[in-house]
């Protein structure tokens, strides 16, 4: 069966469940970039990101026969990625795994970064992008994840809550703080 762009992610995944490898090719092509960047921006190590990336897709492949449409496919995929990331953090005892309180975040944000360009100078797009990625990397884990899920997976607050296993209000709060921090950092 030939799959088209108008086929939903759920249709593609069901097709793969029923034995159509071409459906997997299509859905992989749709989401490989966003998932890779989601993992890369959080672990900030290409080798680790590739390892986690492969683990996530292998988990999905092994669970092929059991797949049922209970939520959006992106929620299902990034939930796998989130859990795999948590496992990595626990194993590696990453320094940034400590989830900071919002008050601490505000205090950190107020600390000037010597590497930052003078606030009165306009940044070109390339430098802005670089600046933004640095700011994203400086975010607390939960806030960074919420922002990346919004940007890379196009998730709503509700979907972010489902993927990360928190309430809607918590997801909304994390996203709001993340954006506030990023805007504040970009305005400097």
């Amino acid at each position, binding site marked *: 069966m030939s799959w088209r762009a108008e086929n939903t992610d759920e249709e593609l995944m*069901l097709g*793969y*469940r*029923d*034995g*159509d*490898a071409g459906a*997997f*090719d299509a859905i*992989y092509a749709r989401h*490989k*970039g966003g998932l*890779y*960047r989601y993992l*890369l921006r959080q672990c900030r190590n290409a080798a680790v990101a*590739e390892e986690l*990336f*492969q683990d996530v*897709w*292998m988990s999905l*492949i*092994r669970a*092929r*026969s059991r797949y*049922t449409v209970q939520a959006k496919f992106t929620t299902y995929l990034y939930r796998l990625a989130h859990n795999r990331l948590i496992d990595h953090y626990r194993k590696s005892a990453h320094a940034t795994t400590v989830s900071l309180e919002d008050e601490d975040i505000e205090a950190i944000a107020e600390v000037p970064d010597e590497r930052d360009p003078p606030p009165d100078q306009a940044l070109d*797009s390339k430098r*802005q*992008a*670089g600046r*933004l*990625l640095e700011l*994203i990397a400086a975010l607390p884990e939960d806030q960074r994840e919420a922002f990346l899920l*919004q*940007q890379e997976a196009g*998730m*709503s*607050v*509700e*979907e*972010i809550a489902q993927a990360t296993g928190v309430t809607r209000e918590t997801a*909304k709060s994390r*996203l*709001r703080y993340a*954006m*506030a921090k*990023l*805007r*504040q950092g*970009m*305005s400097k």
Partner: protein
Amino acid sequence: MTLNGRKVGIGPGGAERDPRLDRVYHAAGGEVPPTHLDAAILAAAHREVSSRPRSLPATLRRWRVPVSIAAVVVLSVSLVTLIREEGGGDLMPVTPGVAPASRAREATPKPAQTDAEKLVAQPPTAASAPPRPAPQRDDAGDPVEKARRRAPAATARPAPRLEQDVVSAGAASSAGESFPPTATAPVEPPQRARVEARARKNEQSAAGRPDTATLLKAYESQPPEKWLEKIAELKRGGWTTEVAEMLTEFKRRFPGYPVPPGLQ
């Protein structure tokens, strides 16, 4: 909505979005996984499909359990029905040597046959034999009559109706009978005689032993023919004592009146 002088929009799902952040972020770079990683993952996905057979469609998988249960139920019911049909068979208790017709007759005692008295009064000769619609054979060749003569209780000639029933039920070999045919199986004569005797005995048991004094008083004003009929009936019932008493009284009341030899 503005925040820090910058317009912030509400995206789908109530998520707060900043167009500038969106633009800057997507301009930051579109990193993609290396090609060798793509090849490895795609190969694994294809191996998974080829190694496992195609799974059932969701519709079939949903109905797998109910269909299985239904199949087990149908099979069980079929087996039970088959066993019952093979093991049930004829539910009627079968008495060896007794045909269904005789079994049916055993259960129902014969009512009193007033017409039989007429036959008893008539000697069994061709000239004086009462007119019968059937049978065709004579008494000498009638197995029923032979059996009746042999049976101690079956000494009296049965009523035409009774005889008709007996002959029609048992005369499998008789030809040209005008009796209405029955659907029952032929009954052997000795068995029939026993059946008749048993029926009469049931009748008598049900009716109770006749009281001679009562009979004598009842027949006090009766003509001699009636007396003889009653005596014949008592004799058929086996009430020998009552027969003797009635006969004695009959001879006293009607001296010289001819008494049939069968009642002597």
